[in-house]
């Protein structure tokens, strides 16, 4: 018993010593998931820290743009971005891994209205107020904006007023509370909320779902994707399902795991980007 305790102490001291020797790995998080839940963020840091064998600092900002900026200026080593900003900076950024949700690395964008709203599709929402998540969010902006563009409309004029809530959960709240008539939200977030806050999503109704698009990936600067810390992060992510902490974090995130990603995964988003800019 005593020997075992001593061994555990020595192991812990060794790990701590090693962790102290390595520089802190900083990873940025965009509000692509339930970033308001501290337990989820803590679980993820714990799992990554254990997997990488070093200290992890998770950096959160309000907007996608801020996190992308931090990554580009090397203030963070990696970041969980959205496919849209990744493609915007594809020349400078590289893919590390992509989450797998409901059997694949893809998700949908939902168009939601209040539960008692008679609208059945995007055309019914003309002249109403609308909540986007973030101007750099694929599911929270690009999908609806590009749909409108394809229909010859512009979001600024189609809606009487469009606001940004900088959070997918905020979009659901804005619609549920009646602040706006409709909202563009990450389908993965809405489904996750339906599990943990059913009373909130019950006040909303999904009236349109986009095609399946590439899930927000974990990115690093293209020039550092081969470096040791990023490779370690990739290993930690891909092997997250192998450790209890990892499985706990995955369960909290309500995703299956992480898998390698290719640029082709985001072709759908790239198409929409082109349509929007057309």
């Amino acid at each position, binding site marked *: 018993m005593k020997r075992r305790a001593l061994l555990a102490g020595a192991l812990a001291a060794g790990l701590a010593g090693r962790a102290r020797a390595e520089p802190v790995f900083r990873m940025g998080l965009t509000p692509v998931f339930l970033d308001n839940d501290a337990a989820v963020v803590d679980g993820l840091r714990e799992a990554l820290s254990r997997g990488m064998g070093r200290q992890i600092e998770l950096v959160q900002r309000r907007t996608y743009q801020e996190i992308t900026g931090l990554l580009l200026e090397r203030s963070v080593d990696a970041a969980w971005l959205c496919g849209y900003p990744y493609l915007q900076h594809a020349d400078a950024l590289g893919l590390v891994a992509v989450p797998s949700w409901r059997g694949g690395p893809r998700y949908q964008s939902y168009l939601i209205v209040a539960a008692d709203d008679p609208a059945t599709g995007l055309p019914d929402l003309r002249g109403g*107020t609308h*909540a986007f998540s973030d101007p750099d969010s694929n599911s929270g902006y690009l999908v609806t904006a590009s749909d409108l563009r394809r229909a010859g409309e512009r979001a600024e004029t189609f809606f*009487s*007023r469009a*606001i*940004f*809530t*900088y959070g997918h959960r*905020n979009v659901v*709240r*804005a619609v549920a*509370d*009646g*602040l*706006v008539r409709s909202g563009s939200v990450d389908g993965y977030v809405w489904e996750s909320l339906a599990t943990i806050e059913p009373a909130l999503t019950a006040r909303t109704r999904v009236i349109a779902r986009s095609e399946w698009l590439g899930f927000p990936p974990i990115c690093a600067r293209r020039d550092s994707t081969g470096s040791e810390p990023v490779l370690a992060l990739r290993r930690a992510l891909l092997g997250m399902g192998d450790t209890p902490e990892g499985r706990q974090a995955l369960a909290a995130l309500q995703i299956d795991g992480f898998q390698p990603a290719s640029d082709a995964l985001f072709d759908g988003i790239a198409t929409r980007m082109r349509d929007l800019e057309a």
Partner: protein
Amino acid sequence: MQALGRLPLSLKLPLLGAAMMVLVGAVASQQVLRALAGVQDARVQELAQMHVEGLSVALGPLVLRRDVWEVYDTLDRASQGGEGRRMILTAVADDTGRVLAATDPGRVPMDSAIADLAQGAAALEDLSVGGSGPVLRLLAPLIYQGRMVGEIVTELDVSDLLIERRRALMLLILGNAVAIGVLAMAGYAALRQMLRPVSTLARQMTRTEGKPYPIPAAEIPRGDGELARLARTYNAMVGAVAAKAEAEKRLAERERFVALGRLSSSLAHEINNPLGGLLNAADTIRTFSDRPEVVRQSADLLDRGLRHLRDVTRASLDQNRMDMEHRPLSAEDFADLKLLIQPELSRQAQGMDWSVDLPGVPPGLAAGPVRQIALNLLLNASAAAGREGRIGLDASQGGAGLAIAISDNGAGMPQAALDRLLTDAPLSPGGGVGLRLVRDLTLGLGGHIAHHRAGGVTRIIVSFGPEPGVQDAEG
């Protein structure tokens, strides 16, 4: 007011006290309520000011950026706090007056005009509970970095404060009612106790037995207060009145005995005069017992003398039994009077005019009092006429009434005597009570007394009945 005036003092004073207490209670309650309203207004204003200032700090930059979501999120989170229970609605508009967000977006949609909501809203310093209803509406500028960047409209739920105020009002009314009721009852009891001697005095003074009665010693308040002195003074007064009446009664008795005394002396003289003749007749009978004609003449003389003596004694006895005489007046009573006054007239060598004209018996007149009245007046006239003077009596019946006129040729009645006879003025010391007795007896029989003085002759006319035919001296 007249009804209040008719109430007894022992009820009126407590009622007045209670009314004053109601007044004082109402004024005090008003003051309390006003103070409570002031406290509540200050409380609500302070709360609203904190709310507005807190929102200004939190929302200033967000409103400047027109960040609708953040404004809404901030308002939403603020409404979840304890303060949110009072702030039932808050809406924030930008500097153009368009609503950015409200805690209830369904009621106040984004981009609606804040002016629609601000109708009827008060400024912070004008915020007052109880003005309109359970919800107060406040309009305040949203100041950030020294300039107005927007407006805030807040609805405050003050129903609890109104309930508190109503409860205070009810408690005040209830408390005042109980206090006033208790104090009024206590005041009523105390004043009634204090005024009991006055009630007793009033009761004793208005008792219907015809004369005032003293207040029993047990009911006189202890000590030397005004009411105790009043009761003692009243008792002394009652005693004095009783003593005076007793004295007057004794004087009247004495006067009757005086008159009787005078009559007795005259009577003795009247009896003494024939006694010599009667004794002579007896001697004559003894001396000439063998001469029948002399005996018969002497016996006749004896008979006449004894009959006269019998009549005189009977009249005296009748007069003395006057108090018990309730038989009706008759012409014989005047004959008695003549018989009774005759010795006094003889003593004074006075002449008399005697006229009695009573064809029927005057109804309802008792013999005793009338005889006393007439005798007193005749004796008075005789005394006034002096030696060798002349007096007269004229009794006549007119209709259902009777008039008796007594006259004398004396020097006339002094004013004091007239006062005793014709008025109820107090008796002056020294004078007799015979004339006042005449007045009392006459009034007791429902009669009138008149006085005339003409041609050196004084006439006192006493008339009874509805149509006496003489001047009413009482008028």
